[in-house]
């Protein structure tokens, strides 16, 4: 079983459109959307949700107003400025503390040191994850709750579920849609993958972000290849990216031209290879075939 993870560094380079086409071309893969805080793959794959599960990646502190004596110990020891002296009065204090949920990182230090045990520490529900059927096979995806954390843990969980399903269904491949950036959800998406396909675009920003994401794959020693999307927007920078890839032995999985049918396919909720009939369909297919070759 092989796992391909599609990431980009810079956002909006076309990851999800390419993953949807790969799903259509692979025919025998399990799909996973690991862009958990702005998931879009479901808009093309129209999953029929079969299972829904809550996800808890950690705990959150809450102050029990009736017990709080307003001593300020929590505020003094919290490294995240989460306790606020804005709670209502109770029988012992004129004002009490509350925990600002956006700031709480669930470390539990206040819980440990509160002199009157006024702080509860409960599992936080950070989101939900789903197992669904799509026209291209089983898909595992998730929705991180609004303003929630622990996206890295959710990503790891989705990849594990996808792997278990692939084993059970005897599938040869897992295709993963990753998130932009180089931080915790991206590291969680790529660790241990068989191949990372980086989708970039020929802009100075794209090139800059590509360098950083390549460095990330090298740091974690994960094989990587690059695909240049909308390559004809700036052929000069496309050449620079090709040259750079050559210098650092980064394999090139192909180029895709800018084509308005890519947006039209998205509006029609179709993958590029289902919707388009012209060159862009062939280019995406060629990127898929090259990616498979690199994987071998």
């Amino acid at each position: 079983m092989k796992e391909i993870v599609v990431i980009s560094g810079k956002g909006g380079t076309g990851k999800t459109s390419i993953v949807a086409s790969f799903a259509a071309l692979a025919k025998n893969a399990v799909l996973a959307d690991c862009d958990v805080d702005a998931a879009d793959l479901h808009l093309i794959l129209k999953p029929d949700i079969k299972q829904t599960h809550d996800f808890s990646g950690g705990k959150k502190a809450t102050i029990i107003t009736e017990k709080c004596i307003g001593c300020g110990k929590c505020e003094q020891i919290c490294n995240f400025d989460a306790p606020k002296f804005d709670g209502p009065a109770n029988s012992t204090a004129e004002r009490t503390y509350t925990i600002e949920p956006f700031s709480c990182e669930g470390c539990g230090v206040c819980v440990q040191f509160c002199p009157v045990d006024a702080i509860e520490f409960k599992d936080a529900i950070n989101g939900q994850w789903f197992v669904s059927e799509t026209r291209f096979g089983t898909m595992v995806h998730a929705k991180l709750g609004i303003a929630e954390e622990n996206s890295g843990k959710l990503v790891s969980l989705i990849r594990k579920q996808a792997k278990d399903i692939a084993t059970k269904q005897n599938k040869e491949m897992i295709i993963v849609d990753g998130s932009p950036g180089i931080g915790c959800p991206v590291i969680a998406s790529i660790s241990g993958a068989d191949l990372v396909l980086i989708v970039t675009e020929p802009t100075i920003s794209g090139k800059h972000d590509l360098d950083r994401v390549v460095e990330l794959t090298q740091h974690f020693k994960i094989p990587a290849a690059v695909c240049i999307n909308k390559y004809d927007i700036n052929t000069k920078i496309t050449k620079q990216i090709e040259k750079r890839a050559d210098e650092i032995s980064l394999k090139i999985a192909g180029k895709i031209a800018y084509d308005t049918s890519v947006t039209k396919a998205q509006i029609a909720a179709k993958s590029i290879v289902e919707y388009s009939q012209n060159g862009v369909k062939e280019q995406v297919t060629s990127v898929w075939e090259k990616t498979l070759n690199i994987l071998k």
Partner: protein
Amino acid sequence: MEKNAVIAIASGKGGTGKTTVAANLAWVIAEQEEAVQYLDCDVEEPNGHIFLKPKINQSEKVKVAVPDVDLEKCIGCGKCGQICQYGAIVSIKEKNVLTFEQLCHSCGGCMRVCPSNAIKSKMLDIGTLDCGKAGNVDFVSGKLQIGSVRTPALIKKVKEQIKENYIAIIDAPPGTSCPVVETLKEADFVLLVTEPTPFGLNDLKLAVDLTREMRLPFAVAINRCGMGDNKVEEYCQNEEIKIVMKLADDRRIAEAYSDGEMIIDVLPEYKKSFIGLYENISRKLKE
């Protein structure tokens, strides 16, 4: 515009034009002879410097505190491992403690619970902070070190550079999770940049939910108008969300962007769009 206003430019979806809007807006504000700062909080992939081309006059490493265990003093009680919620410190057997610095959130819990005072803090690099000037725009940017996951901690450092009596334009990271929350905290106004496509709309809805959850005033800018459908505008109408700017789907903008050029320099006809945006935000701030 009100001095000290903090305006965050965000979006759920990546690549919708946050940096283009933030950089050009900051430039236009400077041209109105107002004191303005541009702060790049997209610390995983900062790109503002490509367009604003600042002269950096101060660059410093950003560090966070992580535990440093003195095994001589350790009595092997295991309290450090019990309080740590992140698996960053583990007491494995008698007097042997392992630390995993990259998992640490710097809460300080282990140091506080240790009864034998065996844990001190040492500093771990998480990235760099650059400050400088781009024309009359005060420029600040954070750059996360490769392999670090301490995105919110670095964003906090970038935001500490917000100056008094300046209008602060903050370029936010994409998404809706902790790095974005850290960036938007205490903003006076959030501008959500989107594009008229199904992905743009889906991620805009998530970003709207986030700003509402955080009780922040916000409005929408639509980039690449004409590339897709009308659903973003319909959604904004139904939700009574103000659209404060529309930028056309103009291949020349994409080309200028690709070369790292400022739109208002290369295509001066768009300057009035950014001045209009500035006036619209000023008006919204007074409401």
